[in-house]
């Protein structure tokens, strides 16, 4: 399959994530949209990794081409997990105080 298909798919997922972050008001759903953005990037990195491996076949770089992107994906997954633990803790902390996860609440700070 051409690499373009993967790029379009990832950009679509990424855009859905961005639109979700900007329009949804539920903190958990906003958070899920952020995760969607990160996973779109993961998919894109893996696709690019295969592409660069394919380009390097028959050259001296064949053994290592594309490997760093696969490792990067693991780092993104680990960091995303750390972020989830902190983020959910913050949302729970807010829920305890306000009994709501609506981020319209945040506008209170402006005054």
């Amino acid at each position: 399959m051409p690499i373009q298909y993967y790029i379009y798919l990832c950009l679509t997922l990424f855009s859905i994530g961005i639109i979700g972050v900007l329009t949804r008001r539920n903190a958990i759903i906003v958070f899920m949209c952020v995760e969607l953005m990160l996973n779109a990037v993961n998919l894109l990195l893996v696709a690019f990794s295969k592409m660069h491996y394919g380009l390097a076949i028959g050259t001296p770089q064949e053994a290592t081409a594309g490997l760093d992107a696969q490792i990067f994906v693991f780092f993104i997954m680990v960091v995303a997990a750390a972020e989830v633990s902190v983020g959910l803790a913050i949302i729970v902390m807010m829920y305890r105080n306000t009994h709501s996860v609506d981020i319209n609440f945040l506008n209170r700070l402006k005054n």
Partner: protein
Amino acid sequence: MNAIILSALLGVVMMFSGIVTKNRTAITYIAIAGLIVLLLGNVLNTYGVFVLHIDTHSMLNFEKFGLFFNSIAIAATLIYVVLSGRDIEKVGVNVAEYYALIFFVLCGVSILSSFSGLLMLFLGIEIMSIPLYILTGADKRNLKSNEASLKYFLMGAFSTGIMLMGIALIYGATGSFGLGGTVRITAATGLPMHTSFLEVAGLLLLFVSMCFKVSAAPFHFWTPDVYDGAPSVFTSFMATIVKAAGFIAFVRLFDAHTEVLGPTWKLLLAFVIIATLLIGNVTAVFQQSIKRMLAYSSIAQAGFMLFALYGGNDLAKEGILLYTVAYSLATIGIFAVLIKMKDYTFDGFNGLAQKEPVLAFTSTICLLSLAGIPLTAGFFAKYYMLASVVDAGGSLWLVIVAVFFAAISVYYYFRVIQAMYFKEGEAATNGVISQGFKTGLLIVAGLILLFGVFPSLVLNAFYF
């Protein structure tokens, strides 16, 4: 390397110290001792003494610039903890954890000052940011702190997503996570390789996400709310060390990349700088709360720090180091005074000069430095920034705009001085101000004046 290893280890030590002792003062002393060890470790690193010899496979690049910035950041944290340690103890019950998080932030800072690939940039930014989300929400029962924390977290995670997309696109175009900088040659023709659309798009996304992190306009909107909502002690930390680290990463990242973007890059950057200066300075004029005013003023200072990116020469690198010193000292000083006040509005400072002359005097020095008045460190910091742009040539109009906005900033800084010295009122402080705290403030003010007269003290240390 020493700074990264030691700060991570000391963070763990701090966490365990919370189990061993419940004495808050003791924990603060452990943190101060840890920071001194960290500072020594980093200075030794500059002279080639290592804790461990580790092959980083050229993912980290320890050059003088980054190591010296580490020293500045750690020394600023040391001053911050010495001055405001008592107030960190008052934020909540988990004092040891706050210090542990501060050490983890320093670990991220030392990665950001030495990364040589996009993977380490990403890790450094995340290691620096995630503890900050927690510190922002440290005041658990306070709704404002909760909201600030959630807002900071969502914005931070969002900008991380954008940054990762940028990195992925750059990887797709170039096939490596390196910082670039060399013009790639096509094997077949021997001509410079055509810069692909993917790479330019990736760089722009990276630029946007870094603007988010350093709160440059038009991506600054989270800053006032977060700085205002977070516990004041941690705002002080966020606005100084963390912000400066963001700028070091920004400068290191785009040092090598600007050629790919061509002349449009300077235009884009000029737009961001002017928007940042305009929004930061003009909005700060209308604030009633000094804490919020300082948040906007930190946006305005970010505009000045962006000049280092615009200049992009050696003078700019010296300038950003000097700016970090001047800005950190002044902001830590003024926040240390602010935390002691009961009322954060301008009226709350009325008549402080009669009641606490030392506090009023030192905060005056800090405010003068922030405004960039000669004989304070802030003057030479701003001077170096503008000189680097003049040196790079061709953008004199931008310097004139910057000086104009610096003049506006004098208005809102002097409003505080006016309130302290020329207005009648009962400035109420939280409890009695200890003698040690006053001495610490006087030392900070003394340092600001010293670097204002001899800025070469900082720069010589850089080249020594």
